[in-house]
């Protein structure tokens, strides 16, 4: 079932909800701008809903071959190299450091 989507209903609260899902802490200005711009883009994109697609399979990719290979072990990235670009790493322990995860 295709729900009826009325773009006039794209609200600031919707944009804030999407931003939270996307882990983006937007400023008030950005939220206002994106509310308007995303409504415009979605109103334009809504035209896909006019196409009759009954019985049409979805295309997720256009691959013609090559999606499997032998599962052979290969050399991993050395740990020092993997940590070298981290903004905060405990290099001796071989760990990435992050702020508190559990409150």
């Amino acid at each position: 079932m295709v729900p009826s989507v009325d773009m006039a209903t794209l609200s600031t609260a919707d944009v804030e909800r999407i931003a939270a899902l996307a882990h983006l802490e937007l400023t008030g200005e950005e939220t206002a701008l994106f509310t308007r711009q995303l409504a415009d883009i979605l109103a334009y994109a809504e035209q896909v809903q006019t196409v009759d697609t009954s019985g049409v399979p979805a295309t997720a990719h256009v691959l013609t071959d090559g999606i499997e290979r032998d599962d052979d072990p290969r050399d991993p990235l050395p740990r020092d190299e993997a940590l070298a670009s981290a903004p905060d790493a405990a290099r001796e322990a071989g760990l990435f450091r992050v702020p508190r995860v559990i409150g």
Partner: protein
Amino acid sequence: MRIPSARAIRDDVASGRASAVDVCRAALSRIDAVNPSLNAFNLVDHDRALAAAAALDRRRAAGEPLGPLAGVPVALKDNLCVRHMRTTASSRILERYVPPYDATAVARLEAAGAIVVGKTNCDEFAMGSSNENSAFGPARNPWASDRTPGGSSGGSAAAVAAGCVPLALGSDTGGSIRQPAAFCGVVGLKPTYGRVSRYGLLAFASSLDQIGPIARTAADAALALAVIAGADPADATSSREPVPDFAAALGGGVTGVRVGIPRAFVTDGVDEGVRRAFEGALETLRAAGAALVDIDLPHAKYAIPVYYLVATAEASSNLARYDGVRYGHRSARGADGGVRAMYSRTRDEGFGPEVKRRIMLGTYVLSAGYYDAFYLKAQQVRTLLRTDYQQAFEQVDVVAMPTSPIPPFRLGEKTADPLQMYLADVFTVSANLAGLPAISIPCGFVEGSDRLPVGLQLTGRLFDESTLLRIADAYERMTDWQTHTPPA
């Protein structure tokens, strides 16, 4: 001094008529002369390039075999990883990122003797059609410095057009090789999806992204494609389809080639000067023996909405990895709020407006309640578009369209209205959605206060880059567009 073609450089270096170091110095000095005004490069690594060139000259002196790109200076779009060379995707979030590995396409270029001179400017994470979404300011068009070189691979196209390098790599998700090639008056080839490994390409939309060459001639594009194409165990989506000798396809004519023109699609919104150049190119091909055939692509008019729904959905997923943990920027605004607040602040600070807009759009179309209406629907229309092309290719060998409906526009002209910017991709996005190879070749100019290049786009059957290159090469010999050079 403008740098010679890749083929000429390779022949001269291989035969000893030129040293790789001298060629490299010439490229670097051209870059140093024009880059302050073009802003085509995010990074130029003189020392690394000269060291690689010197090593190549030593190998030649020792009589060792040299590769098909021996001594050819190349520029790489800054979303291609080079081990121990800063790779930013023109984003603040990766401003200081130094990859620990090479992209497969880059490793293959270097193994073939190419000399990497630096990383080129682009729209942030390849999202844009004007280069204006670069965190480091836009690259400029060598034909008119107040205009866009196109995007997202604008720096690569500008660097080739300005004669800094004969060859550059770009990436193309919805036209990002072909449109800047058209805007800068050079050749740009988006290979078939899967033809070139995407390993080491910073991902934007994984079902659409493809790496390809930008060059001044079809012959140089063919030379580069032959080097970078082919299966790669590090990319499960790279194809095992055999890689033909693309250069061997060149030299012929276009007699009997059937060129399809989707007349009903190439109508509204095409600039008059672009239309004239396009019709002139078709007439040239017809006069040389090609057959022009009117075709219909009934779903092509939906390509822009389908593209922006599919590409942003994939982007929102791909860009989730930039979270301030393993690499890239991390917000310094305290750790209060724990790890989730760190993610959100890092991403707000690190991403520019267009990237945020696309992440938001993609997150929305994948979210509960909208997935079926937008994302799934777009994937179904994508199937219909693929079928349109399959049917067209029963009648014709290639499909011709202008690469862009408009000539290079002024910087700042379209930045206030993202949707207007998206609409400029109308003729390029279909090839990505259908996975097909497509090339843009210079086909004339729009003459006005500035002289602005126009590109002809040819789209071919899956894995039939050879036909595209053959027609492009033949067309070059019928015209002299590729010999025109920008004023700078």
